[in-house]
Structure formats: C-alpha cells, structure tokens
C-alpha cells in the first residue's frame, strides 16, 4: 500500500507545561493539514501547552511504501532523515552526505522522500541539515518525530473518538486477527532551551540557582521546582516539603506530561524513543515487565531500559495493563536518573477499572476524557455511585497530600465503604485492590522485617566516608550494623520463585538531614520501600505517591506492610525509597531481592548455614547446578568526605545536581590513586601482592563453579560500564541463542543476571571500566581457588576441591614475577598464530585538518614499526584469528620517560574527578575481551595474586589466547596504566573469525595480517567485506598550531553561551572522539565554508578523514564495532539506510538500524541485511555515525560507506558477484 504524508517543518513556540515554561525558538514537524490550526492555537495560547504541539507521529504498515512530501519553513535548509527505512540514498536520505546530491529542502522548498518500510518498529526521523549541538540546533529545539511501522494489515483509530487518525502520539491499533493494542509514543528529549513564564531562566526555589536543564517527554516536562513553589507560597499542602508530593495529583492536579490511558488488561505497545541530543536515559515503568526483545519469547525480562540518543525500543508489557495481577490505578513512568526525574521527565500510565465515556470527572472536577474500549476486549463496567472506579473511591482531599492506603500501616485505618466496594474479596495489609499472591494457590509466604536507618559509612581504607549514610537493614541485623559488628552493605534478600513476599517496613530515619557542602537541610520525613519486577497492588504496595493513588509511604517511626508475589521471573528486584530519593538515594537507600529458581535453598558460603539475606551466598538446588551468587550495586553521586571531614568533589552550591561526589560499589571503593606503591608504578595498582586485596567485594568460588552476578545500579544519574576480564556470559540470560558478552552498560534501576562458570583458578578483575569510575575505585575481584579453603564450602553437587597443599598467597609489598610457563587452554595440536607486538610512541595524525596527538602511543606488529616511525600514519592495531586457533602474543614496550604530555604525574586533560599524582608507567600490557585464556598468565594485566602480565621497556611478555568461539569483535587495550596511556591510543581490536577464513586486502586481493578493511574469504561462506570501527573518545589532540583542543567545547558549531560555559560539560564529556584514530570535526569545515547544510558534503570538502569504506551494491558487509576507550558518556551508532539483527547470533531477533548504550568495553557485530545498499542495493554514500548530537557528530564521530554504482579500478569485486 502507498501512503502519503505532507509534512511541514515550522518554527513554533513550545510551551512545556502549565506553569508556562516555554521554548521561544521551538521547531517541529507537523502535517500540512494541521499547520495553520497549530499556529493559530499557539498564537491564542501563548502561556499554556497546546495539544497539537507534539512530536509528529505518523504510521504505516510493514510492506508499505510511504511518500513524505517534506516542506521546509525553517530559515535554513533542513530535512527528514528516517532510520530503519529502505530508500534511495541519492534522493531520500534527508541529508547531504559525501558525493550524494543533497536531499535537504531549502527554505520554502519541498522535497519528496520515498520510503519502503519492511520491518516493524520505530522509524525515528530527525533533521540532519543542521547538526549543531548548541542551543541554536534543530534537534535540541524539537525537530524530530516518528513513523511507527505496525504489523501488515493494521489500521488505527483515535483512542478518544474512535475515528480515523492521521497523526498523533496515541493510537489504538487494530488488526484482522491480532489483538488490538494501545500505542503510546513516549519520546524522551533533553536540553531544550527553556525560559520560565517571565522570560527568565528557570530558578530552583530551594537553591535559588538555575534549575537543571530541560528533560522532557513529547515536548512536556513537569519540574518539581514549579510545583514546590506552590507549596512555598502556601497555595497547596503547606506542610509538605516538595519531593514527596512531586507526582501527587491530589495536591497539584494532573501533570502536563503524558498521561497514557487504558483499561485494565489492555494490550499495549510503548514506542520508547530517545530523540534527545545527549543523555542516555533510563526508562522505568512501575508495576509492569516486558521482554527486552519483543520478537523473542526467550528474551530477558526487563522493567527498566536504558535508551541512548536517537535510539528506540518497543516496550510491550506482559499481560497488558495492570500486569498479571490485574492492578489498576496510576503507574508512573519516568527517567530513573534522579536529576532528570526531578526536573520533570515523568508521566503517568492511568489504568482505569471502569468505563470512561466522558461523563465522569476526576476528584478536582477536571472532566475525564472519553476512552474507547478496545473492540476485542470486554467492555469495562460503568461507574456507579457505589463503585465509582479509580480514582473516585479514594478518600483524598484536594490540595492535600494523598491519603495513606487502608490496612497497611500498623495502627492505621480501616477501609471506607467505597474502598470496601472496590477491594478484593480478602483485603489485607499490602493487598487491598489487587491480589498478586492469589496468582498461585497457597504460595509460600516469606516475611522480612526491614528498617531504613541512618549511620556513618566508611567507603575505603583512607577513611572516605558518608556521615549520613542511609541503608535498609533487616531488623535482626540492625543493632550489629549500628554497633559496627557487621559491615554496612546493601540489603540483599533471597527468595525462590512462587513466593508471596511480605515486607514490614519501618522508617527509622531522622526527619531532618544534611546541611553540609553537598546538600541543604532537608526535611525528608517520610520514606518507603518501592519495588521493581515483582507483582503487587499498585495502590497499596507501590511505596510511592503518584497521581491519584495513595501515598504508600510512612512517617518516621511508623511501620507499613507491603505484599508482593515473586513469580517465575528470576531477576534481582531493585528496591529503594520513592519519596525523597533525589535527596537521599545516593546515601545508600537501595537494595535488592533475588528471586532464585523454585526449590532452591541458600547457604552462607563460609559456614554452610541456611540464610535468607546477604550480598554473597551459595544457592543449591536438587536439579539444576548449584551456584555462587553475588550482588554488585554500583552508585554515583556518593556524597563523601575524606577522613578529615573535607567534602570530596562538592558541587558548586549545596543541593546542586551537577554531578556532586564520587562513586561506590556496595558502599565501598578502592581508588587507584592510593595504590601506587613504593615504585610509583601504576602497572601494579591492581596487584594484591603489592597492595593487598581491595576493600571492594571479592566473589569467592572454586575452579569450575557456576556463578551468577546480579548487577544493579543503586544511584543516581550516570551510565556505568561493567566488565569482567577473562569471563563471559550469554547476553540474554534465559536464551541460549544469543551472543557472548563480557561487558554490560548499566544505568540506575536496571538489573542484570550474568551467569557463567569460572573455568580456572585465579583472580579475575571485575570493573566499572570507564576511566573515571575505575580511577575512583569501582573494581574488585572474582577469586577462584584450585584447592580447598576453610572459608568457602564446596558446592554440594561438585567434586570436593583437593586439600590445600600450598599456603594462600600473602601481600609482599613487591611486584610479582612473571609467570614461568604460559599455556593455552586450547588443544595441544591447535594451530598457533603468533603476533609480535610493540607498543611505542609516535605522533598520530587524526585528521586532514592538522589535528594530531604528538604523544600518541600505539600497538603495532613488529614488522610495521619502522614504517610507522618513518612517517606512516598509524591505525589502531586490528588483528584476526580463526576459531580453533591459539593466538600467541609477544608484547614489547618501547615506552620512554619524557614522551608523555604530563610528566609531572597529574594527567590534566581529559580530566577525571579527584585528580592525583599517578605518574606514567613505562610498562604496557594487552588485555583481550571474550577469548579463552588463563587469567594467571594471559589476561594482559597484573591483578590480585596473579603473576605479572605487564612488560617493561626492552622486555617481552607472552600471552596465549584460545579462540574457542567465533565471537567476532573483541576490544584490546592496555591495563598497565589506565590514566596515562588510554587517551594516547593504547587500544585496538581482535576479530575472532569462523574457522577456515582468510583475510584479503580489498584493493590488492592479497592476504593481510592487520587492517580495518578486509575481505573475508571462507570456503563455506560468501565473500564478505569486514569493516572494523574502533570507536574512541577521551583523546587528547592538538590543532595545527599545537594548541590543545578542548573538546567538545572547541568543536561546538554554534558556540557556547558564556553563561553556560562553566557547567556545560561533565568531566566525562571531555576529550576528542571519532573512529580508528581519525576524526572529522565539523567546526573545521564550518570555518572554511560556513554553510550548515554542506558540512557532510564531500563535494565541498573532499572525503572525511575517518575511514571511507567501499563496496559494490549487494556486497555482504559485516561491521565490527568496538569501544575500547574510556569516557562514561554513552554513544549510539547508526548507519544510514541499513539495518541488522539486534543479536547477530539470533536470526529471529528484532531488526534495527541503531546500536545504543555504547560505552567502554562495548563490542558488537553487525552483519548488514542484504549487504551494501540494503534490500534494493542502491548505490551512494551512506553515513555511519554516532546518534549523539551532543557531542559526537560535530566532534567528528562520523564517516562514509561508499557503495559504487559501477566497477572501480581500485576496488576488487567480491567473488560472489562474478557470474561464473
């Protein structure tokens, strides 16, 4: 079917909420039929939101051809670039890339884009005519929208009228034989320039400083600061503080942000999109869970999802609205990053239990708009006086905080008559209106008495401490923790699936806290226990205060019972407070419950006694293999003081959300600055011989034990990158057809179970590996013993370890020796592939614009060193071997003192928090991801009690890696000195190819040893072009004149408002970036020829300095992407006009054209569907790039894949293309 949309890009004032916060210079896409209407409405309503001012959402079905006539009324050239679609790149790319003709529209002009939409999902579109990241840019001001592609044969209606719908963020989608569903567009975006109703920059009434930058959904946000002003003025709820009622509709009425309406049980698809320019947001949806990949029934189950700029997910909650337990009420959806949540990035999912025909009102008299029931579902009952339905049976009082739920609070109230009418047959504390524990017949009941307490917590041996640490403890441990007998650690409860969990929660916090360099005095007087994943009654046990629900928290000294059902989903469920989390979650107010398989029992790993809580336990089961279980909870914004009481990394003013404080994992950290030793050599920072074991968690196991790591993030705003060196796990926990990973991006509230075996004895490093995290102490060990120890019971279903014959190693204060023998885990007759690799100093020219790193350190094959030293511009070392090969690496260091940019030992740029003396190491190492090796000899790092695996100048260290699996892209990097080496280029890639593959130069056809661009030839596979992209950030470059480039600020096309310059970027935004030691910063191009629309054009500027990959139409292509560098800001990767399976090992996985959440250690293999030019083999220039407008694209993170229309002399054709 052919569909046609006429879309206009217009400038428009966007009012973001009912308080009149607005963006004067907003821009949006709108259907032509609505253009005049929306302009007129905005003219008439300058201070209130206009419903038609919303991101344009249009729809089509799989298989459709969609024509978009784009008309540009912006005062410079703009366009619409569609992700996911098939199109002719020469006329429908919505960009002006390489040698293609421009497919942007000049002001006042129109252009026709023709798209074929061949898979379901979100085809986000945005402008690429102006890639400026500054406040003047198009994307930041609203130029984005979505084409939703529905199953073939679908149609859609307006959820209110039931009539036809041409565009809109909400639709009811119907199908001849599939269930109807409600479709909600939930489009995050950030940094939109915003003024308050008076035309000034919005202030935070608490701090009297500017409030956080705008974080919005569908052009709306509902900041706490606006609502708090009404409290301050005594308009409503004068005894309230602020944060605890931020989401309370009883106090303020409904927010301006999306209220997604449906009936209990309605099937739903959220189209979760991040159209923002900068942040990786963390979507969390109360009460509901979904499969990470909706196409894969075995996929991991989530209830929180990180989403990077210009990327998307389809969130299809299991069991429909209200989940399995049939809950109803308001389920809040929000970005879990607290500063974003606090500034208004939240909305409500309103689940009605009665029919809304337009005749009802909310308690404040606002009419409830009509809502069509889905045609294939039973019609909800009409509201009656006795049973008015949600929210009208709740005995709240307007302008006052929501009432507490009945029954739950010890000594609290009974139900009113209306509540009784709405209740389940056997209401009880914690389950009043939905009965989750009735899902099973007589489930086991597990009861925990939990208190939230305040106490000082010491994070490390140097005495860094949080004087007002706040943690959950079991009541029976409370005295021991307070008296110091037990170390404070996050509360981890253990239970089996099929349990009814009851929590008796007591708030033991003082009513008032803080008043220090980090935070103003705050009356955080009520608290709760809000849970993820498990099933519960949202009205009684959500532990929050949202919408027209109850406030299910308690005051200081009170106790409330919550009830949940832990069904089959074996995840660690996150819990935290939902009343004042912005104030105190980073003080430690988080924990987790781990749902183990049914019939498991839990033992203390040391004594073997049964336990029901603890960070590290042994789980045993009659049928499945027993395992060690460890929880790691990472957090940032740890508000710590040093031992003398001086604040560490205090914000500029108290209660600022601008990245205060440091980091912790399970309330501990082990900063590298304290692990220099006498020799002051960073190479031994991880060595327990030199410094003893870290204070951070060490998971104990025996050789061969299965382990499960429960990875969670407790607080507060930032992405982290968890890596385990020398181990790996299946990416999607329940699914065996999934790729192997050894790294996981995590943001607050996400929970991952990483299941693996520890193959050999030794010390394995786990780390949150971005530079700032690792520097500040987020690392620890997994220690596998080869012989019995008296502090670890053997797993009952495994052979007992041999009796101890040698003493356990002890710290000596001295660097360990090298391993005497290096063996490989591969078979003795495996082919051995040797690489002699040298690390040495050499300048790297990063671009044709003269940008370079004069202090570069690279890895290269020994035979290539001379050529590089003679002036050949180096590329990152990319080596390959095949499945079944043993790889022998002989590594030499030629590093010299005096060749480093900061010889005084303090690395200044790019910076990290808590700068300290840490002089450059001349030793080097090479750590490889995902391969099989003995960590005692070949992990490429000196960790724990393992032998030395770094190498001094002039010496050689040997590693042996076994390629047991064709895992594809693996990052390589140095671990000898993460501060002084990485920014200079000490990384590369290893590609594990299928057995029998040879690697050919694409131009000469000769076999090659290294290189980013090769042709893979394998007797059983098609000839395939392999393009390797080493995405890097944190580089330290100088310009042609030798001046240090301070990226991203120096590269911002529109410049920086002086008022913003102080706090525009975070530490981890700093540094230059691109691919493969190359960058193409747009600022150079703009300064040469100041036309935004031509910035990507090779006709104007020649081809970019970044890798230009070439192919012929239809050539099979696999992209190998690694990110071995260092910064914490997550990136997105997108290729124009192409798409691939989300998981290259699972052919039924979702098809996408973007890869998000890319941060240190990320690896991905992207076999492009249909090869070069995608399905229709269109020739032309296809941009590959980051999705981050802030601050990647303009800083040079982009390049071109050129698909030639005809044979080129220099580029050999693949054999597949020969007719014979």
């Amino acid at each position, binding site marked *: 079917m052919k569909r046609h949309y006429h879309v206009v890009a217009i400038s428009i004032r966007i009012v973001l909420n009912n308080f009149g916060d607005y963006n004067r210079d907003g821009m949006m896409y709108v259907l032509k039929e609505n253009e005049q209407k929306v302009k007129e409405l905005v003219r008439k309503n300058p201070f209130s939101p206009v419903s038609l001012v919303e991101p344009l959402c249009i729809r089509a079905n799989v298989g459709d051809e969609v024509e978009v006539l784009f008309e540009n009324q912006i005062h410079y050239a703009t366009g619409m670039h569609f992700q996911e679609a098939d199109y002719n790149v020469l006329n429908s790319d919505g960009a002006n890339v390489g040698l293609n003709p421009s497919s942007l529209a000049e002001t006042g002009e129109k252009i026709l884009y023709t798209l074929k939409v061949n898979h379901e999902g979100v085809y986000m579109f945005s402008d690429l005519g102006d890639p400026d990241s500054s406040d003047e840019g198009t994307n930041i001001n609203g130029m984005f929208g979505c084409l939703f592609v529905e199953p073939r044969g679908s149609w859609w209606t307006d959820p209110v009228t039931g009539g036809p719908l041409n565009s809109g963020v909400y639709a009811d989608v119907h199908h001849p034989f599939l269930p109807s569903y409600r479709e909600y567009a939930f489009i995050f975006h950030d940094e939109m320039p915003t003024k308050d109703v008076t035309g000034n920059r919005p202030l935070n009434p608490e701090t009297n400083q500017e409030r956080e930058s705008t974080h919005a959904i569908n052009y709306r946000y509902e900041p706490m600061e606006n609502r708090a002003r009404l409290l301050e003025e005594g308009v409503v709820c004068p005894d309230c503080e602020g944060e605890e009622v931020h989401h309370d509709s009883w106090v303020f009425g409904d927010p301006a942000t999306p209220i997604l309406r449906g009936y209990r049980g309605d099937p739903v698809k959220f189209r979760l999109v991040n159209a923002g320019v900068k942040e990786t947001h963390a979507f969390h949806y109360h009460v509901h869970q979904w499969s990470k990949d909706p196409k894969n029934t075995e996929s991991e189950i989530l209830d929180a999802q990180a989403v990077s700029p210009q990327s998307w997910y389809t969130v299809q909650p299991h069991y429909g609205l209200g989940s399995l337990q049939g809950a109803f009420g308001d389920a809040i959806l929000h970005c879990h990053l607290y500063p974003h949540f606090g500034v208004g990035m939240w909305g409500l999912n309103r689940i009605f239990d009665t029919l809304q025909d337009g005749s009802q009102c909310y308690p404040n008299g606002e009419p409830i708009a009509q809502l069509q029931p889905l045609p294939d579902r039973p019609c909800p009952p009409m509201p009656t006086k006795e049973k008015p339905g949600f929210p009208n049976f709740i005995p709240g009082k307007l302008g006052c905080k929501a009432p507490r739920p009945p029954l739950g609070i010890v000594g609290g109230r009974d139900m009113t008559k209306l509540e009784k009418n709405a209740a389940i047959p056997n209401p009880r504390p914690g389950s009043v209106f939905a009965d989750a524990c009735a*899902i*099973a*017949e007589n*489930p*086991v009941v597990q009861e925990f008495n939990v208190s939230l307490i305040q106490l000082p917590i010491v994070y490390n041996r140097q005495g860094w401490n949080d004087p007002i640490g706040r943690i959950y403890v079991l009541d029976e441990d409370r005295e021991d923790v307070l008296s110091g007998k037990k170390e404070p650690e996050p509360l981890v409860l253990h239970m*089996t*699936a*099929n*349990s009814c969990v009851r929590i008796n929660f007591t708030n033991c916090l003082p009513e008032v806290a803080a008043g220090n360099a980090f935070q103003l005095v705050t009356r955080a007087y009520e608290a709760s226990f809000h849970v993820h994943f498990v099933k519960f009654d949202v009205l009684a046990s959500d532990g929050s205060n949202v919408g027209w629900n109850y406030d299910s928290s308690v005051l200081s000294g009170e106790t409330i019972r919550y009830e949940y059902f832990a*069904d*089959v989903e074996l995840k660690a469920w996150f819990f935290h407070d939902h009343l004042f989390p912005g104030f105190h979650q980073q003080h430690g107010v988080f924990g987790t419950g781990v749902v183990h398989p*049914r*019939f*498991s*029992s839990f033992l203390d790993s040391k004594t073997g006694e049964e336990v029901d809580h603890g960070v590290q336990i042994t789980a045993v089961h*009659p*049928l499945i293999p027993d395992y060690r279980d460890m929880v790691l909870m990472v957090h940032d914004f740890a508000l710590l003081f040093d031992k003398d009481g001086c604040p560490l990394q205090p914000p500029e003013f108290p209660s600022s959300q601008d990245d205060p404080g440091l980091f912790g994992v399970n309330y501990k950290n082990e900063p590298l600055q304290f692990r220099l030793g006498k020799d002051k050599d960073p190479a031994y920072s991880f060595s327990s011989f030199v410094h003893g074991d870290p204070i951070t968690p060490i998971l104990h196991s025996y050789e061969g034990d299965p382990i499960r790591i429960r990875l969670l993030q407790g607080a507060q705003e930032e992405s982290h990158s968890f890596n385990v060196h020398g181990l790996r796990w299946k990416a999607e926990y329940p699914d065996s057809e999934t790729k192997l990973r050894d790294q996981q991006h995590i943001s607050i509230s996400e929970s991952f179970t990483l299941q693996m075996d520890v193959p050999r004895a030794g010390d394995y490093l786990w780390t949150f590996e971005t530079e700032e995290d690792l520097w500040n102490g987020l690392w620890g060990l997994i220690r596998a013993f080869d012989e019995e120890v008296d502090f670890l019971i053997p797993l009952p279903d495994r052979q007992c370890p041999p009796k101890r014959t040698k003493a356990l190693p002890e710290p000596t204060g001295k660097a360990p020796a090298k391993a005497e023998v290096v063996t490989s885990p591969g078979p003795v007759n495996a082919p051995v592939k040797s690489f002699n690799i040298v690390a040495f100093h050499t300048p790297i020219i990063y671009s044709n614009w003269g940008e370079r790193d004069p202090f570069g350190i690279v890895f290269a094959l020994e035979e290539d060193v001379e050529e590089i030293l003679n002036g050949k511009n180096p590329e990152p070392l990319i080596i390959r071997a095949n499945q079944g090969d043993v790889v022998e690496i002989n590594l030499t260091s030629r590093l010299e003192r005096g060749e480093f940019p900061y010889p005084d030992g303090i690395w200044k740029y790019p910076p990290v928090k808590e700068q300290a003396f840490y002089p450059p190491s001349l030793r080097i190492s090479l750590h490889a991801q995902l391969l099989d090796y003995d960590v005692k000899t070949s992990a490429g790092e000196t960790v724990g009690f393992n032998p030395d695996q770094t190498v001094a100048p002039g010496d050689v260290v040997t590693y042996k890696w076994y390629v047991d699996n064709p895992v594809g892209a693996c990052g390589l990097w140095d671990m000898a000195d993460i501060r002084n080496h990485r920014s200079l280029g000490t990384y590369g890639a290893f590609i594990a190819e299928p057995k029998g593959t040879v690697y050919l130069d694409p131009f000469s056809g000769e076999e090659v040893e290294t290189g980013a661009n090769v042709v893979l030839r394998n007797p059983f596979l098609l000839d395939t072009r392999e393009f390797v992209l080493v995405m890097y950030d944190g580089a330290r470059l100088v310009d042609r004149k030798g001046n240090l480039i301070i990226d991203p600020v120096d590269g911002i096309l529109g410049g920086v408002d002086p008022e913003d310059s102080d706090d525009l970027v975070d530490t981890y935004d700093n540094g230059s970036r691109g691919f493969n030691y190359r960058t193409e910063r747009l600022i150079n191009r703009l300064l040469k020829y100041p036309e935004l629309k031509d910035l990507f054009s090779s006709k104007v500027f020649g081809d970019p300095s970044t890798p230009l990959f070439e192919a012929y139409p239809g050539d099979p292509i696999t992209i190998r992407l690694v990110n071995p560098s260092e910064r914490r800001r997550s990136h997105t990767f997108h290729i124009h006009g192409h798409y691939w399976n989300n998981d290259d090992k699972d052919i039924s996985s979702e098809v996408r054209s973007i890869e998000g959440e890319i941060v240190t250690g990320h690896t991905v293999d992207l076999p492009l569907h249909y090869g070069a030019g995608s399905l229709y083999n269109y020739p032309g220039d296809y941009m590959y790039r980051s999705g981050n407008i802030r601050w990647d694209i303009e800083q040079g993170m982009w390049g071109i894949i050129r698909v030639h229309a005809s044979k080129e002399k220099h580029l050999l054709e693949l054999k597949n293309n020969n007719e014979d």
Partner: protein
Amino acid sequence: MSQEKANTEWEYPTVNVLHDQALVEEFIEGIGKNIFIMTPSFPYIFIGKLVEVIEDQAVVDVKVTTISELENRQWYVHIHQIEVFYIQQKGQPRIPELRDDY
C-alpha cells in the same frame, strides 16, 4: 522400482515403529511409579506419578512442575515429545523431593 515398492509394502514394523513402541512399553512398565520428565516445551519439567499410558500418551499425576499454577493435576504428555525421563526404580536414585517451603 517394483522391488522398492514391494519393500515398502512389507507388513513388518519399521525400526522407527519398533523404537517408538519400545519407549511406550517402558512407560507401561512404569505405571504406578514416580516419574521425572523433561520436555522442550513449556512447562519443561514434570514430576509426579505415572498413572496410565493411553496409546502413546503418558498420563501423569503431576505434583511438581516449574510453576505452581500447573501442579496437582493430571497431564497427558506425548511420550515421543519427551526428551529426558526417569522412572524411579527400587534400588535406584530417588527423584528429589521438591518443596517450596524448604
């Protein structure tokens, strides 16, 4: 051709039929005993008493499966869909007793 046709018309059972029937016999002999079954499809595991065999269906009084909602009822399990089974015999290991309230 005619020879091949003649071969297919033999009335002796094929090896597959013999193999399938042997499995069914094994189940018939196990009637009244405790059985453990794993199948590739949901709910994957059944533990209970083998009550009866009807043609190639095992009737199992299931005491334990992966989720409690599907327990304490008779399941008809197609014998040839079973990937792993164990019928408890005297003198052989006992099927573990699985209880929620460990």
